[in-house]
């Protein structure tokens, strides 16, 4: 019996007419921002990152920050984005410190702490640098928070990316949670044979140390078997893989992607050649 919530949707495949693929497989993304095609969201992230780092001065990074924040609110991921911001704090603080106090050649001193002098130039550079880092981090975060890996890869494959490439990316990303699960299992097994990992932090660390070897051995032996299994399921067949999931796209989004791509290239080029009009 199919699951109760499996509403069946029809999708049209040019090769075969209509087929009934369950909704839980089609997983058409809905909701503000998420309903954009994954490639569009990807181009937004790349263009933002390019402008954040490639455009000198304040305008570039500030514009990206503003845009990303607005999109995050629109997509409803603002709270999660805040966690990313907090995660960048250590980098930000070190950049600030290093640039403010140790910027070479600056003479407009604002304050002194012992032998170290904070210069106006240094502080400006520091603030801009931290803005860039945060803007970059947030645009990447926005993409990953609103985009399921499988959606992006399925869309790429539909556009012609080889099945091997998408498989490698997909399984690499999937490896992380799989490894985490395996670590938990092994620690459990160690505890069941007398290794005390509960209680103090030192004890917890002791549990993790003997793990590297077995993780690798187990993973390697599985890779061998998995390769054979993949071939046994026709992985290297020459035919074009059947399209099962289609992520919607439209002319407006295509135009937007071109616009963003070209626009960010122009902005970066202008900045490099010193012709960027804004501060």
């Amino acid at each position, binding site marked *: 019996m199919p699951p109760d919530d499996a509403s069946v949707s029809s999708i049209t495949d040019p090769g075969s007419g209509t087929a009934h693929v369950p909704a839980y497989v089609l997983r058409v993304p809905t909701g503000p921002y998420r309903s954009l095609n994954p490639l569009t969201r990807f181009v937004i992230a790349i263009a933002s990152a390019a402008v954040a780092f490639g455009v000198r001065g304040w305008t570039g990074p500030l514009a990206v920050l503003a845009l990303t924040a607005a999109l995050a609110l629109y997509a409803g991921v603002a709270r999660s984005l805040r966690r990313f911001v907090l995660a960048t704090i250590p980098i930000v603080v070190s950049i600030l410190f290093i640039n403010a106090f140790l910027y070479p050649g600056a003479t407009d001193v604002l304050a002194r702490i012992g032998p170290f002098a904070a210069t106006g130039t240094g502080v400006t550079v520091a603030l801009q640098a931290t803005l860039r880092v945060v803007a970059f981090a947030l645009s990447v975060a926005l993409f990953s928070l609103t985009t399921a890996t499988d959606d992006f890869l399925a869309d790429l494959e539909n556009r012609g990316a080889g099945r091997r490439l998408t498989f490698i990316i997909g399984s690499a990303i999937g490896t992380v949670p799989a490894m985490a699960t395996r670590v938990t299992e*092994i620690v*459990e*097994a*160690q505890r*069941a*044979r*007398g290794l005390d*990992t*509960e209680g103090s932090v030192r004890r917890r660390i002791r549990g993790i140390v003997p793990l590297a070897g077995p993780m690798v*051995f187990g993973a390697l032996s599985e890779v061998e078997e998995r390769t054979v299994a993949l071939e046994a399921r026709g992985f290297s067949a020459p035919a074009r893989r059947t399209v099962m999931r289609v992520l919607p796209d439209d002319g407006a989004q295509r135009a937007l992607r071109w616009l963003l791509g070209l626009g960010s290239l122009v902005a970066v080029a202008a900045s490099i050649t010193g012709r960027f009009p804004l501060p």
Partner: protein
Amino acid sequence: MIGIAIDGVAYTYPTGVRALDGVDLAVRPGETLAIIGQNGSGKSTLVRQLNGLLRPGQGRVLLDGAEVGRRHVAELARLVGLAFQDPDRQIFSGSARAEVAFGPRNLGLHGAELDRRVAEALEVVGLAGSADVNPYDLGYSRRKLLAIASVLAMRTPVVVLDEPTTGQDQRGFGRVRAIVATLAAEGRTVIAISHDMRFVAETFGRVVVMRAGRIVLDGTPADVFAEQSWGVLASTYLEPTLAARVGARLGVGSTPTEASLVAALTARM
């Protein structure tokens, strides 16, 4: 020699699955007990309550009269040894020898005494010749035996084996049976989960049938495979052994094993 008391234990996984729904079980010191039931009936969940890997949501577990309580898993590991169903979730060392040595070393053994303990355990499971082999170069069934060896080396008063005969050939099967017999002769309490009805009938003094998180049948193999229990077994998709079915058909009483069938037929002659 220690006994186990499981007292009204219920357990629900974080995913919401209620795996144990009120289990009462008293195991006498030195008893050999088999737990049978469908996949998902709660067998593995139940045995994990014994060494603290899982803690009861309701009820309590007592080992040797003392409540398991919040004692650390590592401490309970001195009392209850558990060989996991999937050896690859348990094995983490680069050699069979190192794998077996891990447990006893945690218990404080070292030097010559540790080496002796390890050698003995490897011998018992037939892996003495593979002591320095990487576990992943051994086949699945020998890795399973290795997992059992690493628990045996800890010489715990209670030994729990989760599906020990899966994937074993005839020789491996014989080794597992001999291991259970030896542990029982040493007075240890042995608990095994198994799908192999013949293994269960021939090797254990007591059988417990689980269904949907509860115990629905509890007795000797003769009780559990007797004709009047077949309805309960069928309700959880289990079948009595062929020997039991033959004995019932010929009207010689409950004969769960081939030996008991032969004995009953001989007696009738």
